[in-house]
């Protein structure tokens, strides 16, 4: 059984405009996916597709005006959404850990990093101060921070972006979580540092038999570090499957457009330019949401497509998935 299995997740943004009309943005409409132990899942899509929102919904970290209105998140068999607030809070940082994208502002600026590493352990388990410190130093060492003993006394503002991200990963992993969610973990870092951080993440996940979800808009990251990929568009999943299958034989026009727009392909001159605004989440069109930007759209696309299984474990939500499978990009 999968470690985490999300079913039909629905999240809305509810607000009022100046005319006092209630506006509902369908930010997530029916997101389902699963991730196993020892597996790295990539969540890709353009900005506003709902990648981060999915992570926040699963972890129960939504704040108004975002509101989860439906769905299940089965973690080891229990539905996270049914848990009392305190139980869920206790699971965060212990069973499910999050690595966020602004490492320098996310660390508590007035607490030395060693104390933060100790604090997060002592909140979640019975452990002596000395042991917690020992583990913290070992963890800093494991994430590749030089002179970990001395760095325990560093303030967050004294760290570079890459170092801060390593500390954040150390904090996420120190309680041996079963699932790690990394939300754009390398945005704003140098390219070389990006690769180091991602290598580190993958090695740690495999070593510790954890499951990981990497949220990114970088297809290269997915290709190099993930086993499975889920492609999101306008608050829904359009294609999912093993990375090799999805990137080798993309079956949804949106995935195909994403792949065609990678720099290498654009340089080859073979990629077609694609674009256009994302659909208005306040007023989603009926039928396929990608219709307006799709080159293959026909009248049939005014009906909502369902998932088509094009190969084992490879699904795409397009009426023409089967026929697109064997077309070259």
């Amino acid at each position, binding site marked *: 059984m999968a470690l985490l299995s999300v079913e039909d997740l629905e999240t809305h943004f509810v607000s*009022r*405009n*100046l*005319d*006092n*009309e*209630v*506006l*509902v943005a369908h930010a997530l409409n029916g997101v389902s996916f699963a991730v196993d132990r020892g597996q790295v899942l990539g969540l890709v899509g353009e900005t506003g597709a709902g990648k981060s929102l999915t992570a926040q919904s699963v972890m129960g970290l939504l*704040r*108004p005006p975002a509101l989860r209105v439906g769905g299940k998140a089965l973690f080891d068999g229990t539905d996270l959404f049914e848990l009392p607030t305190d139980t869920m809070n206790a699971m965060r940082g212990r069973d499910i850990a999050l690595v966020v994208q602004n490492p320098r502002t996310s660390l508590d600026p007035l607490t030395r990093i060693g104390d933060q590493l100790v604090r997060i352990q002592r909140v979640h388990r019975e452990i002596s101060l000395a042991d917690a410190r020992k583990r913290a130093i070992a963890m800093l060492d494991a994430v590749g921070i030089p002179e970990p003993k001395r760095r325990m006394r560093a303030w967050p503002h004294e760290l570079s972006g890459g170092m801060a991200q390593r500390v954040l990963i150390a904090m996420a992993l120190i309680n041996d979580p079963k699932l790690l969610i990394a939300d754009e973990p390398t945005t704003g870092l140098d390219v070389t540092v990006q690769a180091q951080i991602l290598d580190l993440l993958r090695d740690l996940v495999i070593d510790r038999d954890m499951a990981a979800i990497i949220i990114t808009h970088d297809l290269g990251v997915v290709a190099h570090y993930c086993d499975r990929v889920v492609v999101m568009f306008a608050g829904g999943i359009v294609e999912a499957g093993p990375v090799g299958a999805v990137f080798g034989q993309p079956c949804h026009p949106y995935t195909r457009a994403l792949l065609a727009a990678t720099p290498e392909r654009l340089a080859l001159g073979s990629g077609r330019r694609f674009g256009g605004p994302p659909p208005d989440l*306040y*007023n989603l069109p009926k039928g396929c949401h990608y219709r307006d930007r799709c080159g293959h759209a026909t009248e049939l696309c005014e009906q909502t497509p369902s998932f088509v299984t094009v190969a084992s474990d490879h699904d795409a939500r397009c009426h023409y998935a089967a026929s697109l499978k064997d077309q070259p990009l």
Partner: protein
Amino acid sequence: MTTIDLPAGRSERRWPTLNRLVGVGRRSPTATVGFVIVVAFALMAIFAQYITPHDPVEAYPRNILNPPDAEFWLGTDGNGMDIFSRVIYGARYAFAIAVPAVLLSIVIGVPIGLWTGYRGGLFDEGLMRFFDALRVFPSIILALAVVAAAGPSVINVVIVIGLLDSPIFVRVVRAEVLALRSSTMVEAARAAGNPTWRILLVHLLPNAIQGAMAQTAVRAAWAVRISATLAFLGVGIQVPTPEWGVMIRQGAEYMVTGQWWVALFPGIALVVMVLGLNMLGDGLQDLLNPRRKG
């Protein structure tokens, strides 16, 4: 757009402002209450002569320090003047000082804010340092000392309050302009060859003015408070003008001898009016600045 309350139709479009007012009222009860209070005081000020039973400065020598009764609803003061009528007329002085004072600080502050925000440079730096330096003087004392030195008159009170308050508008407008200065909208306008004055007036002013507008009610509240304080201390509007600060001054000594009505009622009027303006201002800041609401 998914509208739950009202489907967008022709009939609703005929009353967009009414619809909007109802919306604002529901979103910000504070602003609504404040608005109602301010309108009530404005009506009091406009129709003062029709709703007052007595002349506000007519002394009744046989009715000195009368407690509230059927004839003098809120009693009479030490000169035998009707407090109810004086309180009503007091609203006129509150508006007569607050409105021109706030207008003056807008007229001074907004253009300076626009210009200094857009141009930046040494002048901008110097001006901001100057405003920082001004903060070492308590505003009440500054107003008092300057009005006292310039000579107490309504005009001087208005000018001093307007001047002291203009830095606030400079700061608000400047901050907005700084945020917009490097936006694509302004870049495009500049690239299209628009002259500076046009960029300032057409592109920056309409966007920057909103922040300034959100401040007006709170600044008016401050102006009413300060002018009453000046009058209370005898610097500013003088006895026997029916102004609230003056009236509190007249009643101060009676407070400890039991004739509480002389100072109490003008004080209540002052508190309610200032509270109304502050509530309106608080709501306005919420509505015009969406970042403040969660």
